[in-house]
């Protein structure tokens, strides 16, 4: 189903002339340096096609004959047509070593041979003829004298191609060359034929599939190493899964386009790269990545996207009733291969509904200075060591992603990890409190256990859960201490949060004793009474005995109770201030 959906995506893009997807037999490649020659094959200049500044310099893309896989000791025998890296084009070795020097010479010879083996009518093309003359006259030696050569040789394996002086496009982009490549695809070579499992038609079966770039590396999505336990019924390599060459080209091209550098259909969260696409063009595709990733160019993209989603009911910008299918594929590299982490298909309407539900679950009261970032990136960074998303345990990001899209329960590890973070930092942030609330609310909604208590966005004075009450109590005790000792550096939170949230009985008796001393220090009698009333309100809901320890879920409620109460204390005081003014 995955390959079929990718194949369909390619077909959809192929009919659209503006999509810029490569036709069969071709590939879009960045060519940083172009050798300009004249009709006689003389070297004119070396042209730099890159634009932009510094590290962001990007070369111009050209539609070129497709690259082919080459590896092993005989890799040098395979070269691309009229473009390749400098080893093939100029015989420039990557190092001074003798082995590399010999290899580069061999590569160049096979590059020249590839051009000379072209049929006669192609060789009569002006451009191709010029390239043949270029090599006959050994003009390639002059390229290295060019003033731009130094910069070109700095790029490891710099791709190069040719252009006729006066022409605007490259020689491999000439119509006669392009026609030749397209014709070659239609001709059936004498390979193994069989039934293609994507199209269901008979055709020539691909032995090796093309590479797919992922996480700065290039790996194959469908590959079978020989004699490693994957060969079945005497079939080796990709013959294990018969896929015709044209279907193979279609799905890899579609996938590479989705995974490409400038792709908007891609989100990377943790070590999982997710690509997504819809059956038909839809605006949902455009706002989808903002829910998950972190956009460096536009840090507030997620806020805007969420706003769009919530307002969609009125504006109709995102069609929440759409039945168009939406595909999400989570990929992550696993020992030289690409593994599928998750695969989700559903209608756009359902998918956007689930995402909205996620933000509803996550919603929690926040201080006015908090701008409120929502994307999955921020969520993960809130539960990661040192706030680095790389420190997230493997699989967790994928599981959360899946829970958001499918509307299922969040993984239990999300709760545990959050509580571990809270105890380590001895503080509860807005995002962390939101995560805990989302987990508990969703869990109770799906499993509808007896405890029918949903956690509210702001302080809920009717919640009598001991964990929640103790969290509130802790927040009030901390506030009393802060008011008794203005400008204090470390409060009881910094010392006792961990113990108070897990084994309340051990610390609360001491904290309550401490509270009496703090209250005694307060000058304002009214404030004192206020606090006492607040404490007795909270105590009214707690059973006579203090619980000896709190379970994981109750520890989560403790954190939420603490956060809610603290927010309430601060909003109240600010409203008091306003009324005074």
């Amino acid at each position: 189903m995955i390959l079929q959906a990718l194949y369909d995506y390619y077909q959809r893009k192929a009919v659209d002339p503006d999509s810029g997807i490569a036709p069969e037999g071709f590939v879009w490649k960045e060519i940083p340096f172009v050798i300009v020659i004249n009709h006689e094959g003389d070297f004119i200049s070396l042209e730099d096609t890159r634009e932009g500044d510094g590290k962001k310099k990007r070369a111009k893309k050209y539609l070129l004959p497709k690259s082919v896989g080459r590896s092993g000791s005989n890799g040098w025998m395979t070269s691309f047509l009229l473009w390749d890296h400098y080893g093939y084009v100029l015989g420039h070795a990557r190092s001074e070593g003798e082995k590399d020097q010999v290899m580069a010479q061999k590569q160049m010879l096979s590059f020249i041979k590839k051009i000379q083996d072209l049929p006669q009518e192609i060789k009569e093309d002006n451009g191709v003829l010029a390239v043949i003359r270029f090599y006959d006259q050994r003009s390639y030696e002059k390229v290295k004298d060019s003033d731009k050569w130094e910069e070109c040789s700095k790029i490891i394996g710099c791709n190069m191609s040719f252009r006729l002086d006066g022409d605007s496009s490259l020689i491999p982009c000439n119509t006669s060359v392009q026609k030749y490549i397209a014709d070659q695809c239609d001709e059936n070579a004498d390979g193994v034929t069989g039934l293609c499992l994507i199209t269901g038609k008979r055709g020539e079966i691909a032995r090796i599939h093309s590479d797919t770039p992922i996480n700065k590396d290039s790996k194959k999505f469908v590959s079978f190493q020989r004699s490693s336990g994957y060969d079945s019924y005497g079939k080796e390599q990709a013959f294990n899964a018969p896929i015709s060459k044209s279907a193979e080209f279609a799905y890899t091209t579609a996938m590479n386009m989705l995974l490409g550098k400038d792709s908007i259909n891609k989100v990377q969260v943790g070590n999982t790269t997710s690509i997504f696409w819809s059956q038909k063009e839809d605006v949902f595709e455009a706002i989808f990545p903002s829910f998950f990733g972190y956009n460096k160019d536009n840090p507030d993209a997620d806020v805007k996207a969420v706003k769009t989603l919530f307002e969609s009911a009125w504006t109709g910008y995102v069609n929440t009733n759409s039945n168009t299918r939406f595909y999400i594929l989570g990929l992550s590299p696993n020992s030289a291969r690409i593994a599928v982490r998750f695969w989700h298909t559903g209608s756009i309407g359902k998918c956007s509904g689930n995402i909205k539900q996620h933000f509803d679950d996550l919603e929690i009261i926040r201080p006015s200075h908090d701008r409120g970032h929502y994307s999955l990136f921020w969520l993960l960074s809130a539960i990661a060591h040192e706030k680095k998303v790389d420190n997230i345990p493997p699989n967790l990001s994928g599981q959360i992603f899946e829970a958001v899209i499918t509307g299922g329960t969040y993984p239990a590890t999300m709760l545990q990890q959050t509580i571990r973070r809270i105890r380590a930092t001895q503080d509860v942030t807005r995002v962390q409190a939101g995560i805990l609330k989302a987990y508990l609310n969703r869990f109770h909604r799906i499993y509808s256990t007896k405890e029918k208590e949903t956690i509210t966005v702001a302080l809920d004075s009717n919640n009598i859960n001991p964990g929640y009450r103790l969290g509130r109590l802790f927040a009030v005790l901390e506030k009393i201490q802060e008011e008794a000792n203005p400008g204090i550096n470390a409060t009881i939170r910094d010392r006792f949060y961990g113990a108070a949230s897990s084994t309340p009985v051990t610390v609360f008796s001491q904290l309550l004793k401490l509270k009496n001393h703090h209250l005694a220090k307060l000058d304002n009698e009214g404030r004192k009474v206020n606090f006492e009333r607040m404490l007795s309100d909270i105590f009214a809901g707690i059973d006579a005995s203090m619980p000896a320890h709190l379970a994981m879920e109750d520890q989560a409620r403790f954190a939420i109770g603490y956060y809610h109460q603290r927010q309430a204390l601060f909003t109240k005081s600010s409203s008091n201030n306003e009324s005074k003014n």
Partner: protein
Amino acid sequence: MEHFNKTFCLEVKGDYACFTRPEMKVERVSYDVITPSSARGIFEAIFWKPAIRWRIRKIEILNPIKWISVRRNEVGQTASDRSEGIFIETARQQRAGLFLRDVAYRLYAELEFIPHPNRTETKRSVPEPLLDTWEKEEFRKDENPGKYYGIFERRARKGQCFNQPYLGCREFSCEFRLIDGHTTETVPISETRDLGFMLYDLDFEKNVKESSPAFFRCCMEQGVINVPAWDSEEVRK
């Protein structure tokens, strides 16, 4: 002898299942639903003889399709009777897999009786000198499909099997129950979806040594998949 194939129905369920797709069998990804060949394996685990052949005709999906991603250790080698065995420590591989979770199906299969002359020679047939003359003359004259229908029904009802049936991989064993139509049963899920081309089975008929896979377009309609007959045009071999 004139006879009709009898159709049997089994309900199977399990916690996990992996009907590995051929294109993604290294880092395993399962098909969305059970394949006909895997369903055949379940019937054969309960009862099989060279005299019969199972033909899967219908699959009903009783639980919604749920996925789980698991990373586990597998063996990166195939065993051969000529080798001295596999030493697991040197052949271990860590692979990620996308499996199905909480699956339940109702499988309908025809038990096809193969008359004696049409049977393929088994590897362990009785050697010539051991055969009695009367056995040769009278050999299986009393054989009829009803006998096999009876055997299967008895075995399936009692829960007997040659090996525990499983859902795609040996480690995902399943429980099974014979459905005989007297009880009210759960209804299939209400989902209609085109599941694309799916492996039907391997075709050993053309060439035993070099078998080739056969595919069919798998369409789920209201949770029911009608499996085309093996010889029909819909099965692409």
